[in-house]
């Protein structure tokens, strides 16, 4: 088989291009992925097309709290039943989470579990009595490597690029519940029926929507409060009550990527664990036990 000159030049040209592409774009400080992201303004190509080329306008307001990786630290030793209840109340009230008595259909964003259920696999027969009585507050861990996001067929649940929060897009969710099967922490709830009859009208928060039947919902780190410069409701309530009781704050919230943040400080000064670390989901909720 003879390679004639024309063929040789063609092959050489393509090879050079293939080999030199990355070094060249690196040298020009051009990252195709970032360039595309900027052009799309944070939308995906299909979202861009569906909005006929309109980019999302506006920018994050000056008063919003920003971070690249939101995280929470739960200091379980500071928790007691009263604080746990108050946190759950606050969360469920401002987000219009329905109160459904049938445990099969219940919806919970933030709730309490015993030690052996919050950290299964860690328990043993001779654990100290204190731990057994403590209420562990559990919620969506907003994992850094979330399996729920990996499996969602419509990107209705997605990890926000700006701050790492694992969000729910209630408008897009088709209710396939694959994310519920994928979550290793059981953090997600499904609306098995219309939630509105189960929300007391006088307790409704008119500033936040409810959900409709057929969509999945979960904690979203109070993204709507962060946008207004407020910390998540549960954290605010817990810190207030702990200050009254003269304890270390039970819930600490901040940017994991900022070495000076409260969360980093809490993690530096205490031993901490995460739920099911062996699964590699890198939860962003830490527990000081």
């Amino acid at each position, binding site marked *: 088989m003879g390679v004639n000159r024309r063929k040789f030049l063609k092959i050489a040209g393509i090879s050079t291009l293939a080999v030199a592409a990355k070094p060249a774009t690196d040298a020009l400080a051009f990252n195709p992925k970032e360039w595309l992201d900027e052009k799309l303004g944070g939308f*995906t190509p*299909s*979202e861009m097309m*569906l909005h006929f080329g309109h980019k999302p306008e506006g920018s994050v307001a000056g008063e919003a709290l920003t971070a690249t990786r939101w995280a929470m630290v739960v200091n379980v030793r500071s928790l007691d039943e009263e604080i746990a209840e108050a946190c759950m109340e606050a969360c469920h009230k401002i987000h219009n989470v329905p109160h459904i008595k049938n*445990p*099969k*259909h*219940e*919806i919970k964003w933030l709730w309490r*579990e015993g030690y*052996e*259920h*919050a950290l*299964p*696999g860690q328990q043993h027969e001779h654990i100290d009595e204190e731990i057994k009585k403590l209420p562990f507050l*559990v919620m969506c861990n907003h994992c850094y490597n979330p*399996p729920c996001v*990996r*499996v*969602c*067929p*419509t*990107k*209705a649940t997605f990890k926000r690029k700006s701050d790492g929060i694992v969000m729910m897009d209630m408008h*897009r*969710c*088709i*209710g*396939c*519940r*694959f994310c*519920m*099967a*994928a*979550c*290793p*922490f*059981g953090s997600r*709830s*499904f*609306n*098995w*029926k*219309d939630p509105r009859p189960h929300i007391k009208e006088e307790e409704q928060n008119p500033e936040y929507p409810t959900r409709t*039947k*057929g*969509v*999945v919902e979960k904690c979203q780190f109070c993204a709507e409060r962060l946008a207004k410069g407020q910390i998540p409701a549960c954290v605010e309530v817990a810190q207030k009550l702990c200050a009254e009781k003269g304890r270390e704050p039970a819930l600490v919230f901040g940017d994991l990527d900022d070495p000076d943040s409260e969360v980093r400080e809490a993690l530096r000064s205490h031993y901490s664990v995460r739920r*099911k670390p062996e*699964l*590699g*989901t890198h939860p962003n909720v830490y527990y000081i036990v």
Partner: protein
Amino acid sequence: MLEKAFLGGRKYWSWMICLLIVMGAGLIAWLFQFRDGLGITGMSRDISWGVYIANFTFLVGVAAAAVMVVIPYYIHHYKAFGRITILAEFLGVSAVLMCLMFIIADLGNPVRAMNVLLHPTPNSILFWDMVVLNGYLFLNIFIGWNVLMAERKGSPPPGWLKPVIYLSIPWAVSIHTVTAFLYAGLPGRHFWLTAIMAARFLASAFAAGPALLIIFCLIIRKNTKFDPGEEQIRTLSGIVTYAMILNVFFFVLECFTAFYSQIPGHMHTIQYLFAGIHGHTGLVPWMWTAVFFWTVSLILLIVPAARRANDVLAVACVTVFIGCWIDKGVGLVIGGFIPNPLEHITEYQATLPEVLITLGVWATGFFVLSFLYKIAITVKEELGA
């Protein structure tokens, strides 16, 4: 050729009308579900997939089983199977159709189903499931129709059909592998997190699918002028036997890993299924029934005298089908959710609307199957095959 489905005797029409009644009941139940939400089923926050997805999982296997007839005929030139490839392909069509219907029935927001197409997400296995299932449906309709048409005209199928048929072979394997991947890649569900999931799925598919095909062949032989053939049934029964042995073997492998390693995460679900945990024994009778059916089927299939007697073979095939349905549908899908990620146990019981919708979908599948089989068999009868 379509008109052949409308020319039938009393038995055919009574069968079709019975199916239509069941389909109607299922549709009405589904309308209630559409209005009131999935809360009318027995699913819960902990057991978020139930009978619908269980049946879907099982039927994907039955659909893939068409490949067990296509491979010997088209790749190994086993001429005898030429008589029944159309039956296998049409079985694939109706099984996949049932799968798609079960998925729609299971969605919380079926009106938003198009979002999967509008926002393609290649990292999601569910996206690929949608792609391969619809592709398989299209492939089998296309291939089946053209092959039947060619047979009717008395000429060999067109040349361009061959590559399409060759494509359908890995495609059939893919539909079941992708469905297994739905389960096998979830980090929080230890019962499903096993590499052998796809292999188990394929083994039980290749047992249950051809078993159903054998039953259909026996029924067709008895009720129509077309005889699928003794040799074909013999070979199919051999396939079912080997697949069933592998299926049970793979299950034993799972049990060994769980119980020899003594790792709680691996053991818990199997314990729940076969012995119950903390008094929760909801699925124990189901699983032991499945074991009983499996044992009976293995005996009847392995003993040559039993396998060769068509009446006994029919019983064996029924036990294979039901046993695999219980193991894959009920045991695997429901069992995977128990215990839940926080080590609580919630049990599951299908409700009446759920059962009606399920039966409605099965009836629709059988309706489509009968419709297509009627056409195929009438063509073959007319040719004096």
